[in-house]
């Protein structure tokens, strides 16, 4: 297993000059605790790691990020000299064989007009040593190395902020989609997608290179190409729209943070956030209800349309029973025996006339017997029951949908009142911020609508492209001279079909495993035993926590329970799609009330068996009780001290080797 053995920070924000932090790599004592006050450099440590790996700081306030200035901030502000270097080095060591690698990113700065400016682009260097070798070798393709070590898109499952963890399933729909995308990336689904894309490109090349095409074929080919170009343009536009949505969402979040700083508005801002979250949740639930109701309609309403036919059949069957036609009064096998033996019951041989009459009776009884067997009772009873159930279920769905719609409307009204209060407040700063927020929200809604339009259009054009392709391939098959191309196209189409099938199977397998493991971990870790019956994750990675009555309790979970749910989910993802990397959690217990802190502290090492963990905690989190619980697993304890005047963080080892 790979362990992060140390990090060396050089002039990175408050870590002035060279600072080394060594982590515990012990198999049993695999936790390193780093304690520090707010602002002492804990989150910076998380940022230093993502900057070193990906050249970006992910745990920084979004307003700084959106200005694109973060690379300037990384240099300690007290450094004023002609030339300066900022660097972060991560050292990894393997526990079983004596191999190591180090990742270093550095950025040079120079003084221009008394201001420190970037002197060049940052540089990533990776050195490795295999099996006790003394010499470090340099990796030729460092970006690729990082991508295979821990893809950028999935770092959130390894380095995360505990304060944000409980929001994992409580943010906008886009975030849920991100979870889905991230997991699919981890499970190599994107690799299948890339292969399909490559095959589609090959198909385009085959079609483009057809020689001496007759006009009909050329027209179809041109049509396909036009549709394909249109789809590509729309996909590009969709990307821009999605990034616009993300940008606006982060701007709104920043405004909310600022509004939250005003004492007089804090309470209603919190309420607004709560209402918005509840409505997002309710909208997802509404979609699900509508989808289930739609399924009921299309599979069961058919019996409603045919009630008269069902009742007619029912009448026929009832009458046959009443008339004694079914079941037949005589078993046809008795007549068959008489005919075979050619003898009456009394022993007298049968005359030809009697035989003919018996044959006719046999025919009639056989038909009734066959009908009786086919009916097997009265099958219309089952159909009538289905109609009754449909009416009952359909009424239930309609009521639930209406209730939910009303609840959403009610919350929207309350939201509108809050918006009006904030907009019309006499405090200029607040009303300015609120006006901006309204403007962003309106832009955001337009983008959501445009996104919906683009998604539908891409879908429609994809179908159109498929139809044209079919026509085109049919046309190609007519020409003997394109035999080879036709064979190639068949092969490509079959491969795409097969890959799509594999993709769907893999997606389902991964999702099912994650759902099962999350359920298992959550039930093991949660302290309220027996309250929650099942955790279910659907195909879109929406999560439900069902109680014993089958009600979804997700929205009423406490912060601690939500964190446990998120940790269970992350543990499940890590177990299903294993990547050998340590876990680093910033403020893991900050949002948890005192009572439950000890519970989580107790469960953390259990939930991440054999995993190296680095926990960045404040003094208020790292209480005596928590320390007592974690101590068995802790190999090293460090204290961060920040000197504001000097803008310098120093590191003090309070337990473990120096």
């Amino acid at each position, binding site marked *: 297993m790979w362990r992060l053995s140390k990090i060396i920070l050089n002039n990175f924000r408050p870590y002035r000059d060279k600072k080394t932090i060594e982590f515990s790599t012990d198999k049993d004592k695999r936790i390193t605790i780093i304690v520090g006050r707010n602002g002492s450099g804990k989150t910076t440590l998380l940022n230093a790691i993502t900057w070193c790996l990906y050249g970006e700081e992910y745990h920084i306030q979004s307003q700084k990020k959106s200005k694109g200035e973060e690379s300037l901030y990384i240099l300690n502000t007290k450094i004023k000299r002609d030339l300066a270097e900022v660097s972060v080095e991560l050292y990894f060591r393997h526990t079983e064989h004596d191999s190591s690698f180090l990742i270093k990113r550095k950025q040079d700065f120079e003084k221009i007009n008394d201001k420190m400016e970037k002197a060049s682009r940052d540089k990533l260097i990776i050195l490795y040593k295999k099996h006790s070798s003394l010499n470090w070798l340099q990796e030729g393709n460092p970006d690729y190395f990082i991508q295979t070590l821990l893809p950028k898109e999935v770092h959130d499952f390894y380095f995360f902020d505990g304060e944000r963890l409980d929001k994992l399933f409580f943010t906008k729909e886009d975030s849920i989609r991100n979870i889905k995308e991230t997991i699919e990336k981890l499970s190599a689904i994107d690799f299948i997608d890339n292969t399909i894309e490559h095959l589609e490109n090959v198909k385009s090349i085959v079609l483009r290179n057809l020689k001496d095409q007759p006009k009909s074929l050329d027209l179809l080919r041109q049509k396909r190409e036009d549709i394909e170009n249109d789809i590509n343009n729309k996909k590009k536009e969709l990307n821009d729209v999605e990034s616009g949505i993300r940008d606006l969402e982060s701007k709104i979040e920043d405004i909310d943070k600022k509004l939250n700083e005003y004492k007089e508005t804090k309470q209603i801002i919190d309420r607004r956030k709560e209402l918005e979250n509840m409505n997002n949740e309710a909208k997802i639930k509404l979609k699900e209800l509508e989808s289930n109701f739609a399924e009921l309609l299309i599979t069961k309403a058919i019996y409603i349309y*045919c*009630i008269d*036919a069902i009742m007619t*059949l029912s009448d026929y069957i009832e009458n046959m029973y009443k008339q004694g036609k079914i079941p037949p009064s005589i078993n046809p096998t008795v007549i068959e025996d008489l005919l075979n033996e050619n003898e009456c019951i009394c022993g007298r041989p049968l005359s030809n006339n009697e035989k003919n009459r018996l044959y006719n009776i046999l025919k009639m009884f056989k038909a009734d017997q*066959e009908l009786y067997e086919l009916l097997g009772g009265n*099958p219309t009873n089952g159909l009538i029951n289905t109609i009754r159930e449909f009416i009952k279920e359909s009424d239930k769905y309609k009521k639930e949908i209406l209730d939910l719609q009303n609840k959403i409307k009610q919350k929207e009204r309350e939201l509108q009142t809050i918006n009006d209060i904030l907009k019309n407040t006499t405090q200029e700063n607040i009303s300015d911020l609120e006006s901006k927020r309204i403007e962003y929200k309106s832009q955001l809604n337009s983008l959501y609508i445009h996104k919906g339009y683009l998604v539908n259009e891409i879908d429609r054009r994809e*179908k159109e492209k498929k139809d044209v392709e079919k026509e085109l391939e049919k046309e190609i098959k007519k020409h003997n001279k394109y035999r080879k191309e036709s064979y190639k196209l068949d092969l490509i189409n079959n491969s795409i079909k097969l890959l799509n099938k594999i993709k769907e199977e893999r997606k389902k397998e991964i999702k099912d495993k994650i759902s099962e493991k999350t359920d298992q971990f959550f039930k093991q870790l949660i302290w309220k035993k027996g309250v929650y019956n099942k955790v279910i994750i659907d195909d879109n990675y929406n999560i439900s926590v069902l109680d014993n009555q089958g009600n979804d309790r997700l929205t009423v979970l406490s912060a601690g329970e939500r964190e446990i749910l998120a940790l269970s989910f992350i543990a499940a993802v890590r177990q299903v799609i294993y990547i050998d990397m340590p876990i680093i959690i910033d403020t893991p217990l900050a949002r948890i009330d005192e009572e439950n802190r000890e519970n989580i502290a107790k469960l953390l090492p259990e939930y991440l068996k054999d995993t190296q963990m680095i926990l960045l905690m404040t003094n208020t989190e790292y209480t005596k009780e928590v320390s007592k619980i974690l101590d068995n697993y802790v190999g090293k304890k460090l204290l961060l001290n920040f000197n504001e005047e000097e803008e310098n963080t120093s590191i003090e080892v309070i337990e473990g080797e120096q």
Partner: protein
Amino acid sequence: MSNKKSSDLPRDLHVDEDKHGMFKELEEEEMFKKTYAPMKTIFLYAMAIGWYSKQRIPLKKKKASIPSSSISEKERWLLNAIAVAETRDIDIIRDGEEVAKIAEEYANYGIDILYNMRYDNKIRKQSEFYQVLDLDISRVIKSYKSTSDFTLL
């Protein structure tokens, strides 16, 4: 040797080749896609609407589209009910070929209505489709409520 009985449905149920595209288009709809056999679901729905409208159209050119193995027992009895009500002869249920033919012809009429319900210009979103279906079913239930058939339920 085949053990096929005369009451068995033919291997496949057919749709008119001219209307196959409509079935295929509906098959791509999210709502149908998530069912066990989307083509069968659409066929049965079209058949039910066709029956309710009391209109059947013979197929011009048959295209085998739904394996009858996908039809459940309950659904088969719905096909039987339509055939019996249509011919006023219970013995029809022993003739699988004829039961299938009647169902196909009703579906051939109903598919036009179902297709229009979805792709009427006023309906743009998939989510509105179920509301249209629900409205139609509520209308059907309302019209049945006055008849003895419904009160028997």
